[in-house]
């Protein structure tokens, strides 16, 4: 089973499964403790300069925006990031806090290529971009979540994606086909926004799960923000709805409208004007800074953000929500 080809991309986040096991043994309590914190407390305690960090799902959908803004507010630097992202990573890029990227897609969806991404990468401010497909980065987390060093795939074969990734092509010893081996990805910090969580960190998600299950199991520190904090009795009544069990979680932040201006399935729809405001202002570095000042740096916390947005606009988002029918 020789290596037929190796990507020249850097493994931005080297991993050691035995060290991960030891971490999970010694740093993850099995006790049901109260992990409720504010955004400030959680980000201050678990995020650090240079850490490898990721967010789920993405900017306009069930995204931990209140946590992402707090990361900017606390002024961390040299972050190594995997994305898959829209507004959240674009904010980080505009704030100049990203040093290396395992990049799959950072865009503004229908609004196109993010000027912040272009400025950050073309200026060399982001030092390294290692390329992965959306599925590949999810499978890399899935490998870590399974506790294995790699997963095979038939994605990326034959392209420059393989060449500029850190994957390796081998011949399957059972059937002889070629597969790319994707190295496990163990994040230092993961930020995930959910519909409901109890104070211990047991989480329920509605609608698509994105890659929340994989990321929650593939990180050393997991900060959960939740639209609603529910009693543990509710969790225990529906154990089959628990997608992220408490022992994976380090902090639980109560963040109503935590995904704004993005949407939250069945709770509120996206705030199109709010999204467009970033699209417009981020066209220039100055405009992006103005946005950051107005919506992030100039505000104390998520509560201040929600006050700035205002009850009426939030209510309008609620009226736009997807309904079960």
């Amino acid at each position, binding site marked *: 089973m020789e290596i037929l080809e190796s990507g020249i991309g850097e493994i931005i986040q080297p991993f050691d499964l035995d060290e991960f096991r030891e971490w999970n043994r010694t740093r993850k309590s099995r006790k049901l403790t109260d992990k409720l914190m504010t955004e400030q407390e959680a980000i201050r305690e678990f995020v650090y300069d240079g850490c490898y960090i990721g967010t789920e*799902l*993405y900017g*306009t*959908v*069930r995204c931990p925006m209140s946590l992402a803004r707090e990361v900017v507010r606390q002024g961390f630097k040299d972050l190594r990031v995997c994305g898959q992202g*829209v507004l959240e990573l674009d904010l980080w890029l505009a704030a100049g806090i990203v040093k290396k990227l395992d*990049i*799959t*897609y*950072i*865009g503004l*969806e*229908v609004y196109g*290529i*993010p000027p912040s*991404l*272009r400025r950050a*990468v*073309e200026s060399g401010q982001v030092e390294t*971009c290692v*390329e*992965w*497909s*959306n*599925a*590949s980065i*999810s*499978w890399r987390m*899935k490998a870590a979540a399974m506790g294995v060093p790699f997963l095979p*795939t*038939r*994605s*990326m*074969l*034959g*392209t*420059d*994606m393989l060449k*500029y990734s850190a994957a390796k*092509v081998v011949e399957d010893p059972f059937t002889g*086909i*070629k*597969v*790319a081996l994707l190295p496990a990805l163990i994040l230092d910090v993961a930020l995930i926004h959910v519909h409901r969580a109890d104070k211990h960190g047991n989480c329920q998600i509605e*609608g*698509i*799960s*994105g*890659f*929340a*299950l*994989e990321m929650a199991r593939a990180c050393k520190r997991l900060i959960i923000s939740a639209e609603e904090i529910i009693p543990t009795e509710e969790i225990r009544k529906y154990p089959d709805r628990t997608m992220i069990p408490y022992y994976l979680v380090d902090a639980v932040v109560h963040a109503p409208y935590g995904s704004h201006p993005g*949407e939250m*399935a*069945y709770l509120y*729809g*996206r705030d*199109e004007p709010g999204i467009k405001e970033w699209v417009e202002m981020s066209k220039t570095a100055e405009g992006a800074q103005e946005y950051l000042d107005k919506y992030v740096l100039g505000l104390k916390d998520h509560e201040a953000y929600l006050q700035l947005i205002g009850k009426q606009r939030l209510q309008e988002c609620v009226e736009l929500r*997807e309904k079960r*029918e």
Partner: protein
Amino acid sequence: MSEEYSKTELMICVAARLFEDGTTCFIGTGIPMLAAMLASKTTAPNLVPVFEFGGTGAILEELPRAVGEARTFHKGISALGICDTMETAQRGFIDYGFLGGAQIDPYGNLNSVTIGDHDHPKARLPGSGGGNDVGSHCWQTIAIMQHDARRFVPRVDFLTTPGFLTGPGAREAAGLPPGTGPIAVVSTLALMDYEPETCRMRLKSLHPSVTVDEVKANTGFELVIPAQVGKNEPPSAEELRLLREEIDPTRFYI
């Protein structure tokens, strides 16, 4: 005699007519969403839309603006995660995929990563996203492109999403699943397919009032020009009504 319509509306209609009823299809943001909705209201009522972050079999009553938003699983068959969706594609369950990019080459390879050198790019683009996966695992893929010589290039700067790679047999040699590959390109000027023997892009049919020379002039490589070049029907009044009144009444895209 059809009324006035935009290039975008025409592309949507030409793309929509390519959908085969009763098939599964990966839908990306933008024109594919409108085309899928139009198709499901016209020629492909049993189309099964698949969105990469988990939504499958949605009833597209309202136009999705993102591949993860709730409209992608509205009254859907299932709402799972990206791994399940992509593994379903890897198992051969997804028939079609729509793709886009900043560059396309004669073999249908697409670039959405960088213009210029990867490590010191002239322009950084969003990245593969699910594009490479869709191009690797779906049975057939269709590209939607602005048609000009800067986008239709002899060689893409960064081969992001596999078309036929370097030509006949190249996909299989690289380990991509046999029987997969690109089948069409819908551009602002015409509809292209691929010449079976060479796997090179071939002009199939022209949009109304577009000439072969115009297409050649806007293509940065030698396009295969068959003896017979067809003509694409302009949007019908009904197609335009559906697009403007039912599918995108707020003119979010069109």
